[in-house]
């Protein structure tokens, strides 16, 4: 991966953010640590100085200036970190272990910091000191403080350690972030590479998974599932176009033959007219097939949604029975309707009629004389079920799923007119309405269950606000 890509990638930005966050929190943590250690030293120094001042002021109060001077002299003589100096109004030292009034202290009163030459003649550089300055009556000035050289050294050690700690943290956070980002980028790259290969036409490719079940693994799994679905749809489309090519070639060839026949029959007008009549019928059949295909495609795409209102399924069933009763009777079949009054479903009236008519059409077409066809309506928790049952030849269990495929025709039904699209349309219409179609054995014959979801019903029996 080129560096430029890395800097632009989301993963790199995450890494930088991650480093910034960890460094930020470490800085806060170290700050607190510094305050708690070095700050403690400062506070302790000040407290010690305060205690000395307290003692001296006690002496001053009890024994006056002479007593104070005596104590200062006594304490100055002790070897230690204490610093004392009492001067007169002109600044000349009276008593104490400092030779001169420190320049840095000037004529300030209160807390002062300054540097002192190594006390006691010891071979040391100037060391830092901290003191408190008071003005006594008659212009006398008193300085009480401590040599904080050792403490400053400790503070420097702490600061150094903290700086190193911060440096290491920054390095680790950046390194870890980069490693993390490279890892993320690598896994995204794997997905990108696979996508590219798929776009180049290899639909069978899948994104490699590491089986960890983490987010990336799940993303890969979902994308793979999506790819499988797309592949299925693609092959379905290919199947349909193959079917169309196959099923259209036969009638088109027949049409062509008829037209040739008509051309050859120039001398026989009656025959010619008849052939042309047949050719027109062929074209009508082709157009009907095309329309049916388009219709199924449009319904499957859900384009007809939006005009559907409540449909009185009971009335629709009675109309259906009334329309088909004569044709069934003509073929020696008994058609009976056992409706259930007042069943209303959301839906498209014409499409539902078309679907149920197709089912009755099939029953009428395939049942032999003497058979009976029953149209029934049943309600089952939230579902309106239309049952079209016949005592005809039925459909073998193995074919009950296949018959819904476009252009599928059982071998023994090839002799019966039809496009092989009727049941595909029925299923598309059922799906459009959120329902389903299932085929069952009617022992003997076929029973088709056309199930539609019903809106919830309120206590007064009126469907809840039409949801369509």
């Amino acid at each position, binding site marked *: 991966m080129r560096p430029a890509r890395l800097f632009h990638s989301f993963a790199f930005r995450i890494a930088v953010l991650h480093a910034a966050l960890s460094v930020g929190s470490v800085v806060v943590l170290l700050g607190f640590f510094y305050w708690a250690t070095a700050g403690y030293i400062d506070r302790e120094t000040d407290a010690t100085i305060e205690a000395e001042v307290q003692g001296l002021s006690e002496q001053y109060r009890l024994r006056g200036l002479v007593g104070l001077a005596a104590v200062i002299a006594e304490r100055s003589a002790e070897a230690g970190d204490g610093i004392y100096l009492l001067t007169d109004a002109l600044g000349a030292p009276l008593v104490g272990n400092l030779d001169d009034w420190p320049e840095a202290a000037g004529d300030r009163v209160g807390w002062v910091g300054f540097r002192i030459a190594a006390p006691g003649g010891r071979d040391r550089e100037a060391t830092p000191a901290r003191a408190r300055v008071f003005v006594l009556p008659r212009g006398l000035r008193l300085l009480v403080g401590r040599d904080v050289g050792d403490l400053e050294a400790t503070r420097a050690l702490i600061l150094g350690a903290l700086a190193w700690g911060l440096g290491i943290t920054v390095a680790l956070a950046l390194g870890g972030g980069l490693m993390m980002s490279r890892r993320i980028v690598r896994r995204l790259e794997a997905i990108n590479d696979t996508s590219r290969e798929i776009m180049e036409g290899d639909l069978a490719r899948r994104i490699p998974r590491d089986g960890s079940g983490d987010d990336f693994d799940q993303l890969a799994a979902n994308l793979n599932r999506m790819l499988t679905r797309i592949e299925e749809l693609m092959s379905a489309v290919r199947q349909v176009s193959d079917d169309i090519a196959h099923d259209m070639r036969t009638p088109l060839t027949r049409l062509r033959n008829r037209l040739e026949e008509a051309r050859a029959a120039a001398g026989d007008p009656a025959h010619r007219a008849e052939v042309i009549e047949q050719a027109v019928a062929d074209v*009508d059949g082709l157009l009907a097939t095309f329309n049916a295909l388009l219709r199924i495609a449009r319904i499957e795409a859900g384009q007809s949604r939006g005009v559907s209102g409540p449909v009185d399924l009971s009335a629709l069933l009675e109309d259906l029975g009334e329309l*088909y009763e004569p*044709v069934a009777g003509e073929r020696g079949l008994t058609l009976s309707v056992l409706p259930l009054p007042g069943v209303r479903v959301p839906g498209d009236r014409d499409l539902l009629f078309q679907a149920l008519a197709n089912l009755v059409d099939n029953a009428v*077409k395939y049942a032999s004389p003497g058979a009976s066809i029953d149209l029934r309506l049943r309600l089952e928790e939230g579902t309106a079920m239309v049952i079209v049952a016949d005592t005809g030849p039925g459909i073998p269990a193995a074919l009950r799923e296949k018959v819904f495929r476009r252009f599928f025709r059982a071998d023994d039904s090839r002799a019966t007119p039809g496009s092989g699209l009727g049941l595909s349309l029925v299923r598309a219409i059922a799906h459009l309405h959120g329902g389903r179609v299932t085929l069952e054995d009617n022992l003997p014959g076929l029973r088709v269950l056309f199930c539609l979801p019903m809106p919830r019903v309120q206590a007064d029996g009126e469907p809840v606000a039409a949801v369509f």
Partner: protein
Amino acid sequence: MPTPTEPFMRVLLIEDDPQLVSYLRKALLESGAVVDDARDGKEGLLKASVADYDVLVIDRMLPGLEGLALLRTLRAAGNHTPALILSALGEVDDRVEGLRAGGDDYLAKPFAFAELQARLDALCRRRSGDAQPTCLRIGDLEMDLLGRRVTRGGREIPLQPREFRLLEYLLRHAGQVVTRTMLLEAVWDYHFDPQTNVIDVHISRLRAKIDKDFPSPLLHTVRGAGYVLRATG
């Protein structure tokens, strides 16, 4: 086969497909109609607004001005010439949309000319709509709309309610070819494609009742088109 139209039908074809226009023009002229055409929406709107036609045939997809927009404009301007919408979009919602825009009938492409002609005849007849008759008559067949009785040659013919409606529709369009789809839409009120000859069987039942015992048949089958109720001789 030309059907008698009275006295002749003036049709405005608003359609941009020149081949379809020339075919329809020829076929309509042969059937005795007077045909004018417009090749785009704006021309169609202009012609429909200025001249008086009996019926308009409007394609939905037109250059210039879309068919339904044209129709809405016409209707808004108070022009109520019957209009038949032609469209390659034949689904139910398209039909509803077309009728809502002010169309009187809707025909999906591709269609048989017989179907178009039958529908145009029906539209023109609807327009000439005389006051609602209480009695319909052809030859010696009489339908009493108030008493819901049908007689032929003075003999009463008992009919089922649906047979009555079927015959009533045929009588109201007597002399015109009526297609199976028109019957399904008008008598059963469903727009769908039956896979079997359901309508033919209903017609043959009706025919058995009104024609069987009489010397001259009234209900004729028109091959490749539909049916016509016509007194012969």
